[in-house]
């Protein structure tokens, strides 16, 4: 049986869509959170988590063969915050795809620590993570991607970026007459908004 527990403070609605073995959750949080996800055999979790200036812990246990999780975390950061993620591949052929995107608005600290553990004998595991933090000002951001792999027959990738929006990209957009603030909004939407938010929620999230 699949399970998702949110131990603390998820604000607003949690949208849950179930389709056979696949469960999609869409939710927002504006205070620190503590999330536990347990996926059993063949089950698939897709999470769209929107965080407003908050941090917390996310623990993902892939407990059955072919279980998978695709976690999209998108945050606008204002104060010092840390998101700590722990993924345990506890069975064969399990899959984790993690996308942690943040926009550090002020001169504060945003940290993503993403630990993925693949113990021995967990063959056929796929573990991918892509983490990005865009600093608007001179914020201090950290991405700590840790892959603890103790088995040869696995596929593991990670990509990280910390910095401002690409100047070449901004130049390209400006040649089409777009102003700096419009470019920033479009790029932010592209970075942070994935699925499940109404137009009002999108606006409120981006404007935060």
């Amino acid at each position, binding site marked *: 049986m699949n399970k998702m527990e949110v131990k603390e403070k998820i604000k607003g609605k949690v949208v849950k869509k179930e389709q056979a073995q696949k469960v999609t959750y869409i939710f927002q949080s504006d205070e620190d959170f503590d999330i536990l996800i347990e996926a059993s055999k063949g089950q698939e979790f897709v999470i769209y988590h929107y965080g407003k200036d908050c941090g917390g812990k996310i623990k993902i246990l892939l407990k059955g063969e072919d279980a998978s999780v695709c976690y999209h975390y998108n945050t606008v950061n204002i104060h010092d915050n840390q998101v700590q993620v722990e993924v345990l591949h506890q069975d064969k052929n399990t899959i984790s795809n993690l996308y942690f995107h943040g926009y550090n608005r002020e001169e504060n600290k945003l940290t993503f620590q993403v630990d993925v553990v693949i113990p021995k004998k967990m063959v056929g595991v796929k573990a991918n993570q892509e983490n990005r933090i865009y600093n608007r000002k001179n914020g201090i951001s950290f991405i700590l991607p840790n892959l603890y792999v103790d088995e040869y027959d696995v596929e593991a990738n990670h990509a990280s970026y910390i910095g401002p929006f690409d100047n070449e*990209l901004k130049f390209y957009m400006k*040649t*089409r*007459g*777009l102003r700096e603030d419009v470019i920033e909004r*479009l*790029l932010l*939407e*592209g*970075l942070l908004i994935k699925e499940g938010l109404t137009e009002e929620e999108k606006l409120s999230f981006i404007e935060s």
Partner: protein
Amino acid sequence: MLEIKELNVITTDIGKEILKDFSLSIQEGEIHAIMGPNGTGKSTLSKVIFHHPAYQITKGKMTFEGVDITDKETDEIGRMGLFLCMQDPLVIEGVTTSDFLREALYEKTKERVDLYHFVKEIGTGVKKLSLDENVIHQALNQGLSGGEKKKSEILQMLLLKPKFIILDELDSGLDVDSLKEVCKIINEYLKENPKTAVLMITHYSRILEYIHPLFVHKMVDGKIVETGDFHLAHKIEMEGYQVVEKTLGEADE
């Protein structure tokens, strides 16, 4: 329409001289082509016109329709009706072609585009260019081949209706059939908008068979060294650029 007078340009980082007393005058409805070897400053010129931050103008002046654009911001120049069809268009992750173009149109006209007409117009452009219909809803240029990216640039051109078009190496990445198709669409646009001027930047004369320039300029070492008509392009194709470079070298000595 576009006047560039004795422009001197250096790179912002190390101060390398790129354009030296560069002058060019393009009137309404004229088509010009600049040809030159690699590293001579052709593509830089297109970026300089749009004030790319990597380049600094140290001397000279640029005007568009009588307005001094030497110190204007890139986005202001874009809104004035200049359009740069890039050599290697970038992917804008998460921003759909449709959203991008609607925002660009709003910025230009300050009027929200009527959705029905926008969808119709973009749909017509996509069909004309034989692009996949889904391209409208996908992130701009994401997953497109080199040739499709060039077509996506032309799609933007059709929607934004510029008065001045810079085509930077349009033929790179396009196969012969696609190049013919794209040039045909550009020619149709120019027929419908006869005041629109074009500046083509190219290595080869092949594209000039499809979009006929009134003037061809040979550019070497940051400046125009010869101007002629279409025949100059053939001469360059036959003789190459080395003859000119050698002549310049001798003159320097």
